[in-house]
């Protein structure tokens, strides 16, 4: 079984930790990731409008490649995952969008109707590897560590299209945390936005948001937050100083538990 992998731009640059440990852990767990050739940027955010077609084409090309090479496409970055999965859903669901996209790609002799299965890295662990198998592979269990999962907005929403977990009360990252021996901390703000890209223009709102999230996580007992999104990671980390809450990528923590990375 081939697991095609779409790393995305940030994982090649600023979020290399997320990428490196993600690949290493996948290898250890017996699901090595194969980076697809010549991928292009996903666009960062999925357009909420009906009439933007061209910017979604790069995703479609990645999806076509994955379809023709095993049928599965794994992503790790929350944003890439969101864009690829929504594109894949819409092309199967929205006739008008599908028609326009297919008109574009017909010139390459291609046709696409959403056949690829897009998986987030977490889904790969839960549905392919299985959290029980992850548990067995743990070498350094994070026993006693109180860790909160931070989902943010992109990983689960819109719930109908992401179809990954209950978007209002998710378990997938908590279950992973339990599997690696940590104590997951549930806090309500875990699926509320960190302030996102607004940070470039005006950092007041992201600051307010992050402080709210951290306060909630801390009140519920979290010592650390893990995330799969480089943007969330950036925003969280920026304002986490002095709160005593550590911010890490989920693969970073996983790598520590699996003994891939020295803790």
């Amino acid at each position, binding site marked *: 079984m081939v697991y095609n992998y779409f790393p995305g731009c940030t994982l090649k640059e600023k979020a290399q930790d997320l990428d490196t440990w993600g690949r290493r852990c996948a290898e250890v767990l017996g699901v090595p990731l194969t980076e697809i050739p010549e991928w292009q940027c996903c666009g*960062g955010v999925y357009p909420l409008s009906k009439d933007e077609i061209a910017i979604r084409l790069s995703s479609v090309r990645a999806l076509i490649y994955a379809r023709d090479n095993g049928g599965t496409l794994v992503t790790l970055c929350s944003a890439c995952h969101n864009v690829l999965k929504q594109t894949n859903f819409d092309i199967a669901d929205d006739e008008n969008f599908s028609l326009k996209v297919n008109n574009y790609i017909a010139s390459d002799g291609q046709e696409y109707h959403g056949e690829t299965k897009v998986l987030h890295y977490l889904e790969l662990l839960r549905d392919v590897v299985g959290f029980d198998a992850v548990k067995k592979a743990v070498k350094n269990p994070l026993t006693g560590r109180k860790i909160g999962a931070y989902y943010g907005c992109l990983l689960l929403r819109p719930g109908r299209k992401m179809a990954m977990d209950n978007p209002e009360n998710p378990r997938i990252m908590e279950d992973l945390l339990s599997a690696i021996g940590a104590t997951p901390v549930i806090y309500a703000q875990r699926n509320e936005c960190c302030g996102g890209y607004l940070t470039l223009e005006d950092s007041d709102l992201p600051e307010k948001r992050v402080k709210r999230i951290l306060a909630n996580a801390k009140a519920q007992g979290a010592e650390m937050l893990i995330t799969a999104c480089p943007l969330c990671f950036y925003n969280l980390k920026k304002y986490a100083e002095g709160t005593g809450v550590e911010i890490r990528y989920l693969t970073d923590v996983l790598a520590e538990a699996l003994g891939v990375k020295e803790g």
Partner: protein
Amino acid sequence: MASNYTVTPEEILAISGVNPRRCMKCGRCTATCPAFAEMEYHPHQFVAMVESGRIGELMNSRSIYRCLSCMACIERCPRQVDPARLIEAVRLAVERKQGGNHLIPDQVPERLEPDMPQQLLVSAYRKYTK
């Protein structure tokens, strides 16, 4: 900076694919919005104002750049009105006109910080320019 340029509700509906008439004015979007305090017009007002054709006011408002596209209102809207889609549509209507870009490349370097992920720049660029 106020401009008289405006588009019709029909254009907004075509861009967004949203039917604001479905709205039952419950206010769940505004209740859930993390950017509420930064907005002059709030998500439920976007719905009402698009329906009543007051799009010019929305186009001149800073509110359209304050939506985080976090999709919380989309997730929680009980009537599938999806206010974030209307906000996006109004913003696109502004950005698609001549000189409508909210972010120009020259402004970027001064705002850069060393740890900023590429994703941030790409997203902001997608949201704020044509």
